[in-house]
């Protein structure tokens, strides 16, 4: 479904990774591993099509994500480091505006169910600025749930979440996987996922700087 072919990424004159290949099928969960600064976020942004790779391509259902843009973005949801929450909009408005950019019309009671699932029941009319950062992240969890996407791309989804939040995220991923969806994620917190999972490790190679100056 998703295929990464000979991807290369250079950042600030450092080769983060090159010749990276992997693919992801329906119902697969994939963790991107690696230390700080090894290019996990850059990789996820490349997979989303937000960042342009120095080399290689990302394919969605056999076509590049550029060629298959509409179908890809209708079926992919991305969560980055930033909360995407507007302080001046209420929780309901925030989640609606997120869904609107995906052109999804969702009934109010469906949103309410999703909000109560992430522990924000009766928070619909609270403005975003009154929420804690953990609660903001929970809105994003509700958004992922409602986005109706087959592929979840999650960059550090556990940031700011408490123990129940982490458990919730884990169960959401497992549920999604069982429903035939797929997930790519990065995390520095231990995630206990009770399902089949693969991982790709970045940072195996030295930085370009180091390699050119030392070897040969």
């Amino acid at each position, binding site marked *: 479904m998703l295929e990464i072919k000979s991807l290369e990424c250079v950042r600030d004159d450092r080769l983060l990774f090159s010749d990276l290949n992997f693919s992801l099928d329906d119902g697969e969960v994939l963790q991107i591993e690696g230390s700080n600064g090894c290019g996990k976020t850059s990789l996820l942004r490349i997979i989303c099509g937000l960042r342009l790779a120095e080399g290689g391509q990302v394919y969605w259902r056999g076509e590049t994500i550029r060629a298959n843009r509409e179908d890809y973005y209708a079926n992919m949801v991305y969560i980055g480091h930033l909360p995407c929450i507007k302080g001046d909009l209420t929780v309901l408005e925030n989640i609606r505006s997120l869904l609107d950019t995906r052109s999804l019309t969702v009934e109010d009671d469906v949103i309410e169910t999703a909000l109560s699932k992430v522990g924000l029941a009766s928070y619909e009319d609270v403005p975003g600025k009154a929420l804690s950062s953990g609660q903001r992240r929970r809105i994003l969890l509700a958004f992922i749930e409602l986005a109706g996407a087959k592929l979840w791309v999650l960059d550090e989804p556990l940031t700011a979440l408490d123990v129940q939040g982490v458990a919730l995220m884990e169960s959401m991923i497992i549920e999604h996987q069982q429903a035939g969806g797929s997930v790519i994620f990065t995390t520095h917190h231990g995630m206990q996922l009770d399902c089949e999972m693969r991982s790709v490790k970045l940072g195996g190679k030295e930085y370009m700087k180091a390699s*050119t100056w030392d070897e040969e």
Partner: protein
Amino acid sequence: MFKSIWRWIQRFSSPKYFYEMSAKLIPWFAVSALVIGVYGLYLGLFVAPTDYQQGESYRIIFIHVPAAWMSLFIYMVMAISAGIGIIWQIRLADMVAAASAPIGASFAFLALVTGSLWGKPMWGAYWVWDARLTSELILLFLYFGYMALQSAIDDQRSADKASGLLAIVGVVNIPIIHYSVEWWNTLHQGATVAKFDKPSMHIDMLIPLLLMAVAFKLFYAAIVLIRTRNEALYRDRNRRWVRELIEKL
């Protein structure tokens, strides 16, 4: 077929190959710029007849007009190579664009200085809001904007693409700016002394002018190659080919 052409383009646009090739080209450009420039100046300053209206002071056009042409020409080169860099991801094109900007800005500045030097005897003031000088000034601002954006963004690739897009937007705007300034000028100045564009220029004036224009182009070619080489060395300072060059020293 396309693949082989593409491979060919990539080979010839690699900074390493460019660095080797350009070393051979620079002397040719530099020497011919010097020869043609000296000859053009000689014709312009000593051979061309004195202007019956403006006396000797008109001779500054042999610097001013080619400089103004160059400032516009270089902006076009910049925008085109930036466009190539954005669309086909050719790093060399981005380098050429970045290397061209200060040269173009210098030519615009030169055109402004020579224009105002010429203006003193003609209009009695160093600066009048003449249409061409005003357009030239705006062009200089466009160059400044490009260079400011280029240096403000840390990530080299984003800096190239962002400032390149600005150059392209600038190119679309230049005709509009030029036309509106011209139009503004006719409203406010009335008919000033027809400046440089005489309906029929004496052939003895035209030849040195064209020679100077050619010399300036060759000079630009030499300088842009030198600057692009530096740019390539600096940007690829951590890559193998530059390291090997250093080792050979």
